[in-house]
């Protein structure tokens, strides 16, 4: 028998022999929940994912992560209405992360650095895209990444669609637009300008295309019946804005009236102001709260001196005299006439009452379902009634924004790719949403949003210089670091630190953590304390 000291009968042992994991009734598991920003992005960007890279100053990785979903970060950082920021959980804490400002910085930085994206390995399949707007270009980009040969046919003199002919330069400088389109062209996408598809079936046959993506947008200005004698003074907003990118600047008078309440109406009013109109009046049938235009754009227009007549409608135009009637809103928020009439003087009336799709060239395509309002019906895979012909952007039923169109392009490209391979694209089912109540916000430091610089008012009224400036490298980094990383581990070591049983194993940078179930007692402190809600407690099954 081994000799032991007096009164000692057992050798010393370690507590590691005691597997306390057997006590557990609940077990912690690491999960990735869907951040609300990602859920809110119409282009399907992994926003939390690229902010995570940007936080570390890994700008190229961050940019490439955006580029997996959206070929236009510099453009979207400027013109997207960022629904991601509306849903951002940080908004409930202090202010939402200025996602668009970081995206814009990354986009601009990529242009400056000349970063490019490679096309995929050639599949030998040919795809036709009709229309070089955001949706068409986005589809072409994603199809090229998947290795398909893409030809775009565009009716206009330059690519960009509404990004060029609808959005004024002071919101989207043309060099930015050109640079992001050039990157797609550099991937081998060919764009044929000034060409119209007259007969789709003939074009498909002659070009040997195996699939088509239609994205011609909605470029026909809607008409509105206003009795008037001098129709020459009435112009449509789209034609007016388009003219800004042509050779000759459109002629307008000293007193301009813009009729409508959408973003296009605001763009037209602000453009008229910059062209030297002494007085620009926006007339809209309903009140400010009911305007379809985004409020910050209305605010910027007001700052620049655009005048408004909410709750008015134009009854008659008689040379330079406008007869307007005051309206009132009924219980449903619809405008109703009051009978109170007044007159206004205007040299030019710009109509901005909506746009329609020019579906003429599709009339002989079999199986296509065009609804009475001119939009094309598509199924869940963005395919029209004609097999192999897909459609997206403003010409299908959806919200008409650059971002939605860009998202359509990606979605359609994935389905077209599957169609060409004879399979079906199945979107992975999204994770549950990382709602605010999942967060432990005590761990986050208060931090105000970084402010983007604004051009001074005098220059805004007189020039087409970009109104909103970008963040620099330092402020973009700080802004990215405001991200709460909702539902996704950001390696803060809190679970590792707070476990009373050392049952969390830290795997090292980029590797996250693992639970040591031999010792985890299932107390749930890690899940409770995790700042971003990336740990769930689930029932233990033995």
């Amino acid at each position, binding site marked *: 028998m081994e000799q032991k000291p007096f009164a000692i009968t*057992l*050798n*010393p*042992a*370690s*507590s*590691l*022999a*005691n*597997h*306390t994991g057997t*006590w557990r009734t609940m077990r912690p598991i690491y999960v990735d929940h869907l951040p609300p920003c990602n859920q809110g992005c119409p282009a399907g960007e992994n926003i939390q994912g690229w902010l995570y890279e940007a*936080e*570390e100053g890994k700008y190229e990785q961050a940019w490439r992560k955006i580029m997996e979903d959206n070929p236009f970060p510099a453009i979207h950082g400027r013109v997207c209405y960022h629904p991601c920021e509306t849903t951002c959980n940080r908004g409930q804490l202090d202010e939402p992360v200025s996602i668009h400002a970081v995206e814009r910085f990354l986009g601009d930085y990529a242009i400056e650095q000349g970063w490019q994206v490679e096309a995929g390995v050639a599949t030998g399949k040919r795809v036709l895209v009709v229309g070089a707007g955001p949706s068409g270009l986005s589809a072409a980009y994603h199809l090229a990444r998947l290795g398909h040969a893409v030809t775009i046919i565009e009716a206009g003199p330059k690519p960009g669609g509404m990004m060029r002919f609808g959005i004024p330069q002071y919101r989207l400088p043309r060099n930015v637009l050109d640079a992001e389109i050039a990157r797609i062209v550099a991937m081998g996408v060919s764009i044929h300008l000034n060409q119209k598809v007259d007969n789709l079936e003939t074009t498909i046959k002659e070009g040997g295309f195996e699939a088509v993506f239609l994205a011609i947008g909605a470029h026909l200005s809607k008409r509105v019946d206003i009795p008037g004698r001098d129709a020459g003074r009435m112009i449509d907003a789209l034609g007016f804005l388009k003219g800004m990118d042509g050779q000759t600047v459109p002629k307008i008078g000293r007193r301009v009236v813009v009729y409508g309440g959408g973003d296009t109406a605001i763009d037209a009013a602000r453009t008229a102001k910059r062209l030297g109109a002494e007085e620009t009046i926006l007339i809209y049938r309903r009140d400010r709260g009911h305007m379809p235009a985004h409020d910050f754009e209305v605010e910027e227009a007001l700052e620049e001196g655009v005048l408004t007549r909410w709750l008015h409608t134009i009854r008659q135009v008689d040379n330079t005299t406008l007869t307007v009637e005051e309206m009132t809103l009924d219980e449903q928020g619809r405008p109703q006439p009051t009978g109170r009439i007044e007159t206004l003087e205007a040299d030019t009336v710009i109509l901005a009452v909506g746009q329609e799709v020019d579906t003429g060239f599709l009339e002989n395509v079999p199986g296509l379902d065009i609804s009475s309002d001119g939009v094309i019906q598509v199924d869940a895979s963005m395919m029209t009634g004609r097999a192999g012909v897909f459609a997206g952007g403003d010409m299908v039923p959806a919200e008409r924004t650059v971002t939605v169109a860009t998202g359509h392009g990606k979605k359609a490209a994935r389905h077209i790719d599957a169609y060409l391979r004879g399979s079906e694209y199945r979107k992975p089912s999204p994770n549950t949403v990382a709602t605010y109540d999942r967060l432990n916000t*005590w*761990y*986050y*430091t208060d*931090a105000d949003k970084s402010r983007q610089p604004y051009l001074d008012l005098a220059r805004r009224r007189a020039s087409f210089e970009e109104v909103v400036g970008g963040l620099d490298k330092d402020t973009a980094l*700080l802004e990215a*670091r*405001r*991200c*709460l*990383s909702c539902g996704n581990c*950001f*390696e*803060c*070591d*809190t679970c*590792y*630190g*707070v*476990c*009373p*049983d*050392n*049952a969390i194993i*830290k795997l*090292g*940078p980029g590797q996250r953590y693992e639970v*040591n179930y*031999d*010792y985890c*007692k*299932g*107390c*749930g*402190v890690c*899940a*409770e*304390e995790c*700042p971003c809600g990336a740990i769930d*407690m689930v029932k233990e099954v033995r």
Partner: protein
Amino acid sequence: MSYQRVKFYQTGTFTVGNRLLDESNRTVQAGMDRTNSLNSGHRACQGCGEALGARYALDAVMRATHQQMVAVNATGCLEVFSSPYPESAWQIPWMHSLFGNAPAVASGVAAALRAKGKTDIRVIAQGGDGATVDIGFGCLSGMFERNDDVLYVCYDNEAYMNTGVQRSGSTPPRAWTNTTQAVGKDPGNPMGIGKNLPRIAMAHGIPYVATASVADLHDLEAKVTKAMSIRGARYIHIHVPCPLGWKSDPAHTIKVARLAVESGLFPLFEAEGGEVTDRTPIRKKVLVEQYLELQGRFKHLLHPRDEGALEAIQAMADANIHRYQLLPLKA
């Protein structure tokens, strides 16, 4: 707060670590090479605040002393759950003698080390609130008076938990324990008794006294590190929730500790030579009710509401906020 918090962006200042932060600025607990003075397999209950507090404090001591340290443990939960014969969860030189004599044993260890010229080896004594404020109080007071070179750490879970939740001199007013039942006219522990040991320690005029909480790791580690930079008798009082005795959800251990700090009931401060020198401000002030409602031991104050008791406890928190200036003064 005796140190400058690394004002690190938006997600690193209060979390245990942060991948964006330089290693030297992260907590000891964030390190992959953390020493785990108290190892896995110990038999503390789920969500034990004391097990957590002990590892936090001793790992910080290990770093500060380059692992040249020895710990003397009083009887109590910490001693029992870590060392059922013949197992030990301790990865440090560790000894246990009796319930009431840990400060005296530690004084002796320090004297022996001094006699052998090994003054680089530092001595820690530790115990629960029972061993500290009641049973070992005489020895502790002597250790303070002699200014022996020992850091005494008290893990305060506000009752004798190991033996089945009996009241101690640190049990808060109106709390249920098995010896202060929630019955009668003034249910729970009587108001106006008990001992505030950090202030008693300060009254001894020893070099360093601090309070800390498992809810603020950066603060706790900074205080332990500072204590180890000083020679003589030092005292740190750490608030450690006990899910068993407080009748709280084990998952809420840190949350409860945080609410104690944020309500003002457990003020975080430092004192040197008997004078308060610094305090950790409250970040997001809460009412004491928010702290009390997570704990079954205060259930009788809220169901039905005992307005008098709630007001009295809130007044205690407000008095702490005033005494230690826990809220930034309004301009």
